[in-house]
Every structure is written in structure tokens, then in C-alpha cells.
């Protein structure tokens, strides 16, 4: 067990037990947790932005100055992508997205577009961006600095500059915004570093444009400052004589899950009260976009109206259950306690460099670039991707799966941990937003997956959903199958005066659709099919060119050039809500089956506005190699195609023409031998029975027989188990894992058997018997063939004598040579490479990897199957139908007594003369 390093500021003291006999863990509600005073952090004065004590100036405080008394706030602000949000990458190049962060990347879900300099129309200015997104903006970065890197206060108020203006929704005009008046928002330390930040007051301040007040508002009514009618007042009694805050008010601590949840997603830490959700709320984006909920509570004890809830006896998220905090994986990159994980460079021989920061150095300049993953949507600070702990940092997959999963390495090289350990999400997630139309509350038509009915209504049934599996390219180049939710957004775009494509502004859409808060009459006439004056869910969609034209014309009338509908499908990563044991996928047939998880489609939208199919967002590390198809009922689906990712999943993937061809070979051989045999039978009935002269010969020595029958049994079992592996949907009764084990074990037996036999034959030089003599080969083969085609029906003897030292006729020789020396080695080679595809990836890939090896293996298998049919039939051509088989069992065979060939010809001549 790792010891927590004391350098992390001490968290809450553990609550003490109440009087044990009375306290109820289950029935009575928890007492409200008391804010704990930090035992280590010293008291400090609160300073305003000029460095003066707020008690003197009465001004709002400045976090940079206040916390900057001991911590290097400049450093912190410059090393915090939470604060930067894409500002440092901001570059206008005519594209819709000017950066990869929230500041500059257009999110079709929130829809408002941060206007770029020179844009024809103003949508979101920086000030309004801050008002709208403020609840989730930490401060600093774009909240303080302009796109050119200057302080925002220095940017003159100018209605033409999106950095210093504001769109007036009433008039539709841009108005100037004076940053000097509103102030800017510094990075707000309190959001994460105190227990109960006043989110509501802060939001109020932001939405009213009082940016400088926001950080102070975070402390409202927490003891230090009180909100008043006309502003606020510092509470002098909370301060000491020397102007520093009282010891009881030092509430600084390191971030807990609640702090992170305020912006990121739904968590639920109170185990005694049932969890409830606000589904689809973009203020908790992780939950809204993927349905991830971080809670230790058992799903069966939650208050969600969830289908099958009683059986879901697992926690929402197992890491939350095991008491992990967000910061355990998303830690500060220069935290000395985590130095072992973050060290990358150094001499080859060095495992670990202990020369890390001292605690005091770290506390002075903590790097607020937190360790982060490689999720699809959050691409700010891409140089830091993959720095956080992943599953393999803590878990050893080879030990954890060793008692049940075969081919652990192969699985881990193709499939990410999340695929099996997050098989299902149990909360609703957004499926699509249709911004091509507007509902009466000026929003898009929203669709959710995982819920029947409206997501936040108590009567709706939450069913949860299974995420789609897509290939993700990690920063180390590895491609793994990972679960995602796909969210599709449809919206109007237009060409602006500069030739740039821009999304149509919400303001313009509203103008097009509404007149005095009701739908405009021409919109109504275009959409209202049953003319009842109300646009129902079925009517409010653009499903005809007429409707599209109606809206288009209105947009054109507003001066928007070339308005058109576009659709974008974006993947959202799923990494939380991990489970274990029987709740994870542990059934082979979940993927190794006809209906495989790997190829399971996911619905994108229930209808495509005017038939426009969405494009898959490529600005991420997801390889969407599947197809976006429209089904018959108009819904659009994404179908993964594993073959396009060069994935071959046994039991699920197959090459159809090989199966058809192989089956044809097999069936053809079967038909052939049945026909031939029938003819032979019929011909013997007509013919007079002339007993052939036979002699008993010791034809096959014991080793040969042993080898032959072991080979037979092995091949038959291999064929049978191989068929089950290839089509587990037909042979569902067998355990996939068991059958794979049997196939592998028997394959080894076959290889050993074959190798010993090769050694035997070479050592005894009996291998010569298998090699057809080239001289006269074709003549002899034709003679033999003629025998089978016509002479056999006449009851004639075999053209070639069967002697212990010459047991095989030419056709046999060439057949066996091909089988034993060509096909069998190929089958073994492909089989071994399939088994060891992770051990020798270079060799396997040189051959084309599994997508080539596996179908080839199947084809040769079909050939073997056909061979067995033919071979068994041919053994009936001995003196009596079963004699040859008897010979191969006992060793002794009654063979036809053969006169010399020349004697036969003489006889014929004599006979013909007669």
C-alpha cells in the first residue's frame, strides 16, 4: 500500500462516529459535513489587484495578488491549460476552429460561435463567451488576456472588435464592451481549493458581466465576505488584528472530487442518499455527453428509474468505490510524490532519478498542467497527452486475467481495457442535437440514447446504452479498440463576406424561425403538416426539400450566402464507470460471434435532415473506418467494419467467398464419391462375381499405423474444433474458450506427430516411397486414372501391384505429397502465426497479419475436409471395400495377387487373338 505523502495539503479530518447505538447508516440522513479548517496552511491577508489589503480598500480581492504572496501565481497561470483553454494556440486561418480548446473551438452542442476578428457578423464576443461559459471557466487565460497576448483592459472598447464588444440580442447589433469597467477574471484558486465555493454567486457575477467580482463572489456568505444589496462587504470580524484572515477561516485544501465535479460531470459522494441525475445537462458535460457518473454507490441503490436496476449490484464506478480521487490519476505533473511516473528523459541505464523538487519548491510553483489522457474531444495542450496514469500504471493485466483469459497479450494488443471493463453506461447520454430547426425555447431538437422518454422526467425509463467500439491511435502509436459515444449535430452553415464558412448564428436562426416569440407564419406553413398551429416533434424536422427551401430562403433574406445543412458526428471518449468481475465482459462469445460487440452498430440520428449524412469528425485520434449508413426507416447508423482496421476476430470475421468455395469443394467431393460408389455398386451387381486371388501381406508396420491414426484423429478434431471457432453462432453450445484450448493442444500433438514421422521417414529413407518418379509419371498416372474411371466398374484388377515396398500408386503419391509436404506445413505455419500473432508480430504482419492468415487457414482446412472424404472413399477400392482399412488397423492386408505387367499385356494379346 503506498503511503500518502504529506506534501499534499492535508484533507479533511475523518468524521468521527456519532453515538454508535443511535447512529444509523441506512435509515437516517447524514448530518451535513462541516467545513474543515486546514491545519497546515498559514493565515494570510486578502489583497486586491493593487496589492492593498481588501479591508482597507473595500475592493474585490485578487487571487493573483493574494495567493501570490507565497505561491508563484504567474507560474501557475502560465502552466495551466485549465486556464489557457486554447488561447495560446489561437490562430485565425479562415477555418471554423481557431484553436483546439474551449476558447476558439466551435462546439456544435453549445452552438454559439466565438467570432474571429474580421468576421462579418458578431456572434459570441470574448465578453459574452465568458458570461456564457463562465461557470466552467477557471479564469486567467482568455478571461484576462487578449488573443494577441495583451491584458484585456488594454483593448479599447470597440463594437467592431469581437474582443471588446457584445452582441445585443434585442437589436441584433454589436455594442462596445469596456473591460476597464467590468474588469477581467483572474484564475480563481478558490474554485478548486476550498470546500464549498459559492458557485451560484459567482455565476451571477459572471452573467451580469462583473468579471472582476467573480472571484470574490466565490467566497460570498462563506464567512469572509457578505453579499449586500449593492455589492458586497468584507466581514471584519472574520479577520485578525493584523489584517490577516482568522484561523477559523483558512479553508484551503487540495481538490476533492466535488471540486472537479462542479465543472466536469456528475459525481455522488454521499452513499446514504440515492443518486439522482440531471441528464443531458451540458453544465456537467462528461455525464451529458457520455452518461458517465462517478459514484461509489451501487447502481441498485440509486434513485434512477433504471431498467433492471435490482440486479445491478455493482457500483457506478469501481475506482470511486475504492476511494480513489480524481487527483490520484490526474495529478500535477511536477508533484514530487508522483515523480516516478512523470520521469521520461535520462540516461538509458537510469531507472529513477531521485533529484526531485522539495515540497516547499513544489508548493511555491505547482504545475497546474495536470496529467491528462488522450480523449477524443479535449485537445488543448496536446503535448501533455498521455501523461496520466492509465490502467496499466496500476494493474497487471497478465496476472489479473490469468485464470480465465487465453491469449492475454493478443487481446491487450488489440483491445483497450475500457472495452471490456466499461461494457455499458447506465445513464442517458446525448445522441444528437438538430440545430437546423429551433424549438419554442430557442433550442435544438435533442435526442438522447439510453432512455425512453424525456431524460429528466421521473416517468422515463433509463435503459442505459452500450458504447460503440472504435479504433483509437494512442500517442505511442498503438491502435486499440476503445468505447465511445457518438454525438451527431446538424446545423446550418453559410459563407460569410470573407469567404469563410461559419455556422449560422443563433440570433439569425431565431430571426428566421420566430416572429414575436412564436413561429413565423411562413415557417409554420412550411412545417405544420396538419395545420393545427403547433409544430409537433414529427413536424419539427427538415425532411423535405420544401422545408429546407423555406428555411434557406429566410436565411438568404438575412444576407447569409449559400446557407446549407451540414452534419458532424463527434466521438466522446468513455474512460470512467469501470467495473470488474462478472460485470465486465468475460464471455468470449460477446465478441467472438456473428453478432459481435466489435461490429455492433450505433444509432447516430433518427432522421437525417433532408437526407444529409453526417461527416465523421477527423480532428481527433479516433479512426472511424466504418460506414455511416441510412436504414430503411430513415435513421442513420454508424457500422463499424473491423476488416477496415485490419482486425480479424475469430468467430466473427470471415471471408465469404472462401467459405463458399470450401463448402463447394467439400460438397463436390462428397457428391463425386457417392456417385462413383453407387456406380461401382451397381456394376458389381450386374457382373458375375469372379473371386480375386489374394494373398495376405504384412503391409503396414506398427509405427506407420500409429502415426496414421493419430494424424487422422488429430486432423478430424482440429477440423471440428476449427469449425466451431469459425462459426460459434451455429455451435453455441460449446464453450469458446474450451474449444480454442482443445484446438491448440491437438495442433501441437499433430505437429509433434508429423515431425516425428518426417524424421522417421528420412532416417529410414522410406521417404522415397512418397516421391513420384518423374520418368513415366504422367503415363502411369493416366493408367491409374483410367482404372478408376472405367476399369474398376468392369471388375478389373489394379494396374499397379501393392507391395509393402511400393504401396502407393502415382496418383496417391502426388496427392499425399501435396497434402503432407505442402498443405500441412502451410496449415501449421499459418496456425502457428495465428497463435503467436503477438509474439512474432513482424513475421505475422509480413504475411499480411490475421486478415490474410486466418482466411488462408480456413481455405486449407476446407481442402483437408474434402481430402478426407475422398481419401476414405478411395480406401474402399481394395480387394474388398473394407480390406484396406483393415490393413491399416491390423497391419495385414489381403492384396490382389499380381501377375507381372508384361504378363498381363501378353494375356491380353493372347485373348484378343482368340
Amino acid at each position, binding site marked *: *500500500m503506498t503511503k500518502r505523502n504529506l506534501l499534499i495539503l492535508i484533507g479533511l479530518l*475523518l468524521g468521527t462516529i456519532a453515538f454508535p447505538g443511535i447512529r444509523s447508516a441506512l435509515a437516517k440522513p447524514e448530518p451535513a459535513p462541516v467545513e474543515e479548517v486546514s491545519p497546515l496552511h498559514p493565515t494570510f491577508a486578502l489583497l486586491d489587484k493593487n496589492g492593498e489589503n481588501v479591508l482597507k480598500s473595500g475592493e474585490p480581492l485578487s487571487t493573483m495578488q493574494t495567493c501570490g504572496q507565497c505561491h508563484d501565481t504567474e507560474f501557475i497561470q502560465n502552466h495551466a491549460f485549465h486556464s489557457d483553454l486554447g488561447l495560446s494556440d489561437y490562430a485565425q486561418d479562415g477555418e471554423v476552429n481557431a484553436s483546439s480548446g474551449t476558447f476558439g473551438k466551435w462546439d456544435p452542442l453549445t452552438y454559439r460561435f466565438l467570432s474571429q476578428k474580421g468576421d462579418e457578423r458578431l456572434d459570441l464576443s470574448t465578453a459574452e463567451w465568458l458570461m456564457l461559459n463562465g461557470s466552467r471557466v477557471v479564469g486567467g487565460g482568455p478571461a484576462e488576456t487578449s488573443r494577441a497576448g495583451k491584458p484585456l483592459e488594454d483593448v479599447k472598447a470597440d463594437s467592431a472588435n469581437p474582443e471588446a464588444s457584445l452582441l445585443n440580442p434585442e437589436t441584433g447589433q454589436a455594442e462596445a464592451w469596456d473591460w476597464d469597467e467590468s474588469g477581467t477574471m483572474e484564475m480563481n484558486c478558490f474554485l478548486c481549493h476550498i470546500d464549498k465555493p459559492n458557485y451560484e454567486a459567482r455565476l451571477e457575477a459572471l452573467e451580469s458581466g462583473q468579471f472582476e467580482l467573480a472571484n470574490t463572489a466565490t467566497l460570498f456568505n462563506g464567512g469572509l465576505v457578505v453579499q449586500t444589496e449593492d455589492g458586497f462587504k468584507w466581514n471584519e470580524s472574520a479577520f485578525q488584528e493584523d489584517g490577516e484572515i482568522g484561523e477559523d477561516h483558512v479553508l484551503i485544501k487540495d481538490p476533492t472530487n466535488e471540486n472537479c465535479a462542479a465543472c466536469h460531470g456528475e459525481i455522488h459522494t454521499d452513499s446514504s442518499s440515492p443518486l439522482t441525475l440531471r441528464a443531458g445537462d451540458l453544465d456537467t458535460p462528461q455525464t451529458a455527453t457520455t452518461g458517465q457518473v462517478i459514484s461509489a454507490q451501487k447502481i441498485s441503490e440509486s434513485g434512477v428509474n433504471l431498467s433492471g436496476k435490482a440486479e445491478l449490484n455493482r457500483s457506478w464506478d469501481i475506482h470511486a468505490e475504492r476511494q480513489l480521487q480524481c487527483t490520484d490519476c490526474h495529478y500535477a505533473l511536477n508533484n514530487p510524490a508522483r515523480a516516478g511516473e512523470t520521469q521520461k528523459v535520462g540516461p538509458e541505464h537510469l531507472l529513477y532519478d531521485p533529484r526531485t523538487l522539495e515540497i516547499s519548491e513544489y508548493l511555491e510553483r505547482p504545475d497546474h498542467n495536470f496529467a491528462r489522457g488522450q480523449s477524443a474531444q479535449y485537445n488543448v495542450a496536446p503535448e501533455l497527452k498521455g501523461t496520466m496514469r492509465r490502467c496499466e500504471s496500476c494493474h497487471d493485466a497478465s496476472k489479473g486475467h490469468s485464470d480465465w483469459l487465453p491469449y492475454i497479450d493478443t487481446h491487450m494488443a488489440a483491445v483497450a481495457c475500457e472495452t471490456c471493463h466499461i461494457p455499458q453506461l447506465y445513464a442517458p447520454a446525448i445522441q444528437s442535437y438538430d440545430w437546423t430547426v429551433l424549438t419554442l425555447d430557442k433550442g435544438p431538437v435533442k435526442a438522447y440514447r439510453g432512455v425512453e422518454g424525456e431524460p429528466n422526467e421521473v416517468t422515463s425509463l433509463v435503459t442505459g446504452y452500450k458504447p460503440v467500439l472504435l479504433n483509437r491511435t494512442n500517442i505511442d502509436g498503438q491502435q486499440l479498440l476503445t468505447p465511445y459515444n457518438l454525438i451527431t449535430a446538424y446545423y446550418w452553415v453559410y459563407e460569410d463576406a470573407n469567404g469563410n464558412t461559419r455556422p449560422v448564428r443563433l440570433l439569425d436562426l431565431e430571426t428566421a424561425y420566430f416572429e414575436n416569440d412564436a413561429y413565423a407564419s411562413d415557417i409554420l406553413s412550411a412545417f405544420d403538416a396538419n395545420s393545427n398551429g403547433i409544430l409537433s416533434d414529427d413536424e419539427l424536422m427538415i425532411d423535405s426539400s420544401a422545408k429546407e427551401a423555406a428555411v434557406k430562403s429566410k436565411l438568404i433574406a438575412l444576407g447569409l450566402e449559400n446557407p446549407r445543412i451540414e452534419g458532424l458526428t463527434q466521438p466522446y471518449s468513455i474512460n470512467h464507470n469501470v467495473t470488474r468481475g462478472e460485470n465486465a465482459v468475460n464471455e468470449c462469445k460477446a465478441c467472438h460471434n456473428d453478432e459481435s460487440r466489435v461490429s455492433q452498430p450505433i444509432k447516430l440520428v433518427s432522421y437525417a435532415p433532408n437526407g444529409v449524412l453526417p461527416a465523421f469528425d477527423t480532428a481527433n485520434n479516433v479512426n472511424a473506418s466504418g460506414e455511416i449508413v441510412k436504414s430503411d426507416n430513415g435513421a442513420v447508423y454508424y457500422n463499424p467494419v473491423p476488416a477496415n482496421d485490419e482486425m480479424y476476430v475469430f468467430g466473427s470475421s470471415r471471408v465469404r467467398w472462401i467459405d463458399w468455395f470450401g463448402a463447394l469443394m467439400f460438397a463436390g467431393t462428397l457428391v463425386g464419391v457417392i456417385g462413383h460408389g453407387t456406380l461401382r455398386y451397381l456394376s458389381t451387381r450386374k457382373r458375375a462375381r469372379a473371386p480375386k486371388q489374394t494373398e495376405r501381406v504384412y503391409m503396414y508396420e506398427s509405427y506407420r499405423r500409429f502415426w496414421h491414426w493419430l494424424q487422422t484423429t488429430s486432423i478430424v478434431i482440429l477440423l471440428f474444433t476449427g469449425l466451431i471457432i469459425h462459426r460459434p453462432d451455429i455451435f453455441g453450445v460449446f464453450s469458446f474458450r474450451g474449444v480454442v484450448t482443445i484446438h491448440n493442444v491437438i495442433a501441437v500433438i499433430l505437429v509433434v506427430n508429423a515431425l516425428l514421422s518426417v524424421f522417421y521417414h528420412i532416417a529410414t529413407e522410406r521417404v522415397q516411397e512418397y516421391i513420384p518418379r518423374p520418368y513415366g509419371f504422367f503415363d502411369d498416372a493416366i493408367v491409374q486414372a483410367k482404372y478408376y474411371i472405367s476399369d474398376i466398374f468392369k471388375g478389373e484388377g489394379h494396374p499397379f501391384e501393392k507391395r509393402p515396398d511400393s504401396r502407393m500408386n502415382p496418383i496417391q503419391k502426388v496427392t499425399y505429397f501435396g497434402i503432407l509436404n505442402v498443405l500441412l506445413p502451410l496449415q501449421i505455419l499459418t496456425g502457428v502465426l495465428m497463435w503467436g500473432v503477438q509474439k512474432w508480430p513482424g513475421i505475422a504482419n509480413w504475411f499480411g497479419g490475421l486478415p490474410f492468415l486466418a482466411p488462408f487457414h480456413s481455405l486449407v482446412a476446407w481442402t483437408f475436409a474434402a481430402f478426407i472424404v475422398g481419401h476414405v472413399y478411395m480406401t474402399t477400392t481394395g480387394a474388398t471395400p473394407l480390406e484396406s482399412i483393415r490393413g491399416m488397423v491390423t497391419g495385414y492386408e489381403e492384396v490382389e495377387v499380381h501377375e507381372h505387367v508384361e504378363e498381363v499385356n501378353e494375356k491380353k494379346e493372347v485373348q484378343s487373338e482368340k
Partner: protein
Amino acid sequence: MKKRLSTSSRRRFPFWTLGLLGIILVILVPVLYFLPRAKPSTNPADYLPQKAVHVDHADIVKGDFETGQDVTRACLECHEDAATQVMGTTHWTWESKAFDVPWRDEPVTIGKANQINNFCISAQGNQKSCMSCHIGYGWQEDVPYDYENAYNVDCLACHADMAQYGKGNYGEPSESVDLLAAARSVRAPTRENCGACHFDGGGGNGVKHGDLDESLYFPSENNDVHMGGQLDMQCTDCHWTNEHQILGRMLTDNYTIDPGEQVSCEQCHVNQQHEDERINTHLAAIACQTCHVPALALEDPTKVFWDWSQAGQDGRVDDHFTYLKIKGEFVYDKNFAPTYLWFNGNNEYRYLLGDKIDPNAVTYINKPAGNIDDLSAKIFPFKLHVAKQPYDAVNNYILAPITAGADGFWTNFDWNNAFELAEDRMGLPYSGSYDFAETYMYWPTTHMVQPSENALQCDACHGADGLLDWEALGYPGDPVEWGGRDK
């Protein structure tokens, strides 16, 4: 290659069969060796005791029975040793075996016959009511009980169908009982027999133990997974009985307990391993009951506080759950979490009559033994019952009043009188002045085992809202962060 003509007509051994056998072995042995095998699991049901086949006594038992002793006489005609066996058990003697305790020079015994608790306090002198739960007939207050009289053993209490039998004053059969019908109905004991006394201890349903009450007559699976649902186990399925020696010892009436005499989960759940490795790492420090009995008194409330000092007030309405004039004020609770202590199976102290107390501090009637450094101790759930009961203000020891007995407190509500009457019986001089002191008694929680789905989860103990007071248990802090006790 020579041709070998075999002309012999001798029957030869068909050697090809040996080859066939060889092939079968070469195939089967590796396959069976490598085939994935299910882990062998022990089925706890395999360890359930085999019960004797029930013999219907309807035609065997004959005759008129006037008294309970008559019935016993009839039983002993065939079951000759039964009474002797019973007389060797604590159900009969109401006293434990002798213990050497450090605070006394002589060995002591502990039991209802001679010690006190913090519920109804003392059975001595109150035999009229209390002995309705003794498995014998006629134990009276003034006459020493004849422990050697085999006919005093009450066979019916454990063996009769409880629809036919009940016990009344001094342990005699109730007036309305038809002894013949009761005697004919005998069979192996069921929960009804055991529960008739053990569910109603302390003066009512569920008062005393917290994990034993009348809801266990017909429990659901969620109430008790062993006694409820399909399993419907009887008490004797865990409290294995051999020749009337019943497995299981009550902590409160013992000083040390020999593990061989105590019931444990491992009797049936042999070498229990959980599928989750992390849970298995808890087994050395946490008892099974801690996680699997998460709450006490699931359906019927149990008494958690009893204030004798309020007894005897006039003008208050009697209510079973809050106040009774004869008993005082109480607090009941239902479906609550137990108290958790280190426990190695023994008491470290058990209050004996005459032990001095400090009236300003808590007096432990029994105190479970164990601490974090004792490797045989595990964290175990207890029901804590707190009481304020009378003590001698001059002599500083707990007093055992006559309550139910003749002229006792329940008759005339006079404490002094009750103590004086008790003087002779207890051998404890009464100084004449009394007061009330706070006492604690710990009752182990082991019944009302929940199905495994309802067992405590990680966050029940670990994390911010955890149930356990880590520092009180001796840990520096939450073991999730600080490590367990063996680190």
C-alpha cells in the same frame, strides 16, 4: 521388404487395440491437462448436520400427564440419558463453567443464576417470571433449586410443537397446555422452540439481542439469508448439538470462550475466499459478521437505552417503546449500524456482583477483549446497550433489586424495599442509599446475516463518511491511505 505370409491359424492378440489405446491417451491426456477448469468450490450445504429421521410420537406417547415432571418421566423411559445430558449444560445450570479471573482470588461462575445484566438486572428473587425461560420446572425463589432431579428437566420446551406448549410462572407449563398433546407433538427443535425464549429476552420481542427477534420466525431472505428464503435453516443447523451439548456460547455470560465451543461461519463456509482479491486481504482483520451483518434490528426495533432512574413515576402513560412505570424510560432503534470493536472471542472484563464501580465513569457489564495489536482479534460488530441502573451509593457496587418477585419494585415501586429484600438473597449488604450509574453491555451481532449482495461496500467504512472511528480502533487513520495493521 520381405513379404510375411501368415498361415498360422492361431488366434493372435489384436495388437492394434494397443495402438488405439495409445492414440486415445496421446490425445486425451494433454487435452484434459490444458482444458480450462472451473475452480473447485466447497458447497457450504455439504456441512449441514444430518438430522435424525423424525419419528412421530403420536402413537408412542400414552397416558395422563398431570404435571410437567410426569411428561419427563415418560420421555426418560426410552430416552434414558437425555435428562442427564441436559443437566450438564448451561441451559440447565444457568451458570458458566468456573473461570479464574484476575480481579478475584477464587474461581467464579457467570450466569443468570448468579450475576446481573443491564436489562432486567437480576433473575435472583424474581424467579416467578424469569424462570419461564428456564428449561426446567419449578425453580422458586426461596428454595434452592434441585439441580439433580432429572424429572425437573423440561423436555417439551425444546421438543414440543410450540403451538401446543408454553411455559408460565416458575417455569411450569402454562395452565392452558394440554400436556398429552404437547408430548405427542415432539420433534427436533425448530426456530419456534429456541425463539420462544431467545427472541423475547429482556422483556419483549427483540429487546435484548438486536439480532434475534420474532421477525426470524418467518424471515425473508433479505432479513436473514440462512433462516429466510429457500434455506429456512433451523438454529440447530449452526448450533450443532451432540447429546444435548449445544455449540455456541453467549459472550455476556462468559469470561473466556473456547473456540471449539463457539459457533463460527467456518463450520460450513470452509476456507471461504471471495472472488474479489481485495476483499480477501481484509479477512485477517475483519470478522465475517462485520460486512455481512450490516445492520441490527432490521424489522423489529431493539432497545438501546434503558433508564431505570425514571421508573416509578406516576401520571405517565405506559408505552412499550418509550416508558413503562415498572421499568423506566427507554430508547429503541431499528435498522441501525452496530458498534465495532476489536474482538478475539473473549471478554476482558465481566462485572461480578460485588465489584466496585466508579459512579462517575461508565461501568462495563462486559467488555469484549481485543486490540489492534492482538493478531487473533478482528473487528466485530456489537450491539451496545446503555443503561442507568441502581447502585449502592455508599458501597459503590451495582444492586440487584427484587422486581418481579413478591413485594418487589414492580408491586410497590419502592426501591429501598426492593434492595432490602434482595440483601439476603444476593449476599450483598445494602447501605440504605442508592443512586443510578451508567452501564454498558456489548452483545455480539451475528444473526440477521444479509445476502452477499447487501454486504457492506468499500465506502461504508473507507472514505469521508465511513462507519469506523479509525483512531479509536488504534489506526493512525484510514487504512486505505495508512496501510493495515500489519504494515
